């Protein structure tokens, strides 16, 4: 098989591996190597899906969680680019604040959810804001890293052609740093999704996070696992879209 054929087959291989692991788990539970009470049968998890669709408005919840995550990550991208360019342009600011941004990236902001509740009320806004706040730091860090890695001579070409700061930003800085920015955006989506689902779960409101909370309180283990699977599906969806976007924008550099 040629290299490109392998590349095309790789995603199918990944799915196959998941299916194989599920089958293995199924077998392990049936054989009583794994306790069927704490870990539900994969077949039961799968069987619970239709029920979730009919009784729990899963589609609407899926859309809500995905939408909130998307909103949070998009805001983080815009704000992250802005902060990124500021830290890049003023190295002293970068020296002063980059460590703090790194600390922020590692901080479990979600634990401060009561504060956000007070500030933004118990609604989707709070969820999006917490998602945004957790996704912002990685975008800033990756953006600055990307800008700083640009070869000086490319910027000199821009200067010799007398680009305005806005032209330099959109025609050189961003395209040159695009791979880094995409990495930042990937991290942003991951961080946003984790926190959106986490807050939905904690404050019992909205999308898939709340559903997971409810189902687990009802001891509906197959349903809980199926709902967790749907969260994974949200992130798979984002990654597929992002991959396609990156391939379009940043081919062959």
């Amino acid at each position, binding site marked *: 098989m040629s290299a490109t054929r392998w590349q095309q087959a790789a995603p199918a291989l990944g799915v196959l591996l998941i299916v194989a692991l599920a089958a293995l788990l199924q077998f392990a539970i049936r054989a009583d190597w794994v306790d069927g009470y704490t870990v539900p049968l994969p077949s039961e998890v799968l069987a619970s899906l239709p029920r979730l669709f009919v009784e729990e408005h899963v589609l609407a919840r899926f859309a809500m969680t995905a939408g909130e995550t998307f909103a949070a990550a998009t805001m983080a991208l815009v704000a992250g680019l802005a902060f990124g360019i500021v830290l890049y342009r003023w190295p002293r600011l970068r020296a002063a604040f980059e460590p703090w941004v790194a600390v922020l990236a590692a901080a479990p902001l979600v634990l401060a959810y009561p504060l956000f509740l007070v500030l933004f009320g118990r609604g989707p806004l709070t969820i999006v804001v917490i998602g945004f706040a957790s996704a912002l730091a990685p975008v800033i860090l990756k953006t600055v890293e990307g800008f700083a890695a640009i*070869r000086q001579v*490319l910027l*000199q*070409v821009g200067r*010799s*052609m*007398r680009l305005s700061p806005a032209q330099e930003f959109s025609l050189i800085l961003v*395209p040159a740093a695009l791979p880094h920015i995409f990495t930042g955006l990937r991290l942003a989506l991951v961080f946003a999704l984790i926190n959106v689902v986490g807050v939905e779960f904690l404050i019992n409101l909205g999308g898939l996070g709340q559903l997971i909370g409810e189902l687990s309180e009802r001891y509906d283990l197959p349903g809980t696992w199926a709902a967790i699977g749907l969260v994974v599906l949200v992130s798979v969806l984002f990654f597929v879209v992002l991959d396609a976007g990156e391939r379009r924008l940043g081919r*062959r550099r």
Partner: protein
Amino acid sequence: MTDAALLSVSRVTKRYGPRNGGLTAVDDMSFAVERGEFVSVIGPSGCGKSTLFHIIGGLTQATEGRVSVEGEAITGPHPAIGMVFQEESCFPWRNVIDNVAFPLELAGQGRASRHATAQGFIDLVGLRGFEQRHPSELSGGMRQRVCIARTLAARPRLLLMDEPFASLDEQTRMLLGDKVLQIQQQLHQTTLLITHSITEAVQLSDRVIVMSYRPGRLKRTLAINLPRPRTADILVSPEFGTYVAELWNDLRQEATRGLAEAEG
């Protein structure tokens, strides 16, 4: 001041402060480039050629002295000057035609018209058929030609090049020298070429300016009275050999000194 030289460099000195090594990279250099002229600046590695290039391009401030274009003093990058850098500088995210069309895009030209113009310069540097390729798919020599075409597309009155072929192998360099001769003939492009290759300087130039090593001073100017249009044939003519020998004589001492200082 219509009769002012296209480029005039007068008493230009560049000193790096003590924090940057306290070095005089360019010392009191004066020369001019007339319209239509092809002038080379030649000197050993580290003698201050790139520093001079950046000063003329308006990217670095001279410590003393003045650079002017058509009598107008330069305070920053000047639209009449187009620069080709020593380091390869194509935009890796753009294909060849969009690299070359870049200055036209800045000027607000529409896509069709700028691509038509860019195509002309791509043909000129001999890259027809590679319009849709990305720089990563080209050889070093081809990439440098893309950079030259991109700079030419802005129609600069002075083409300023800093060792554009330094990183290329000997054969490629000679072929590109031919290309530059062709461009010179077709566009009557006024050019200031910075190089450390003696043959390149003699093959291409009307005048060669020799720089000394530390401090980087103007050591002498040599007029190259070889007939134009020139072809690769002049490389084997006896006059060519005489010029090369003369320049080598000048440069040998400088290069030896440079080498000794670098090793000591």
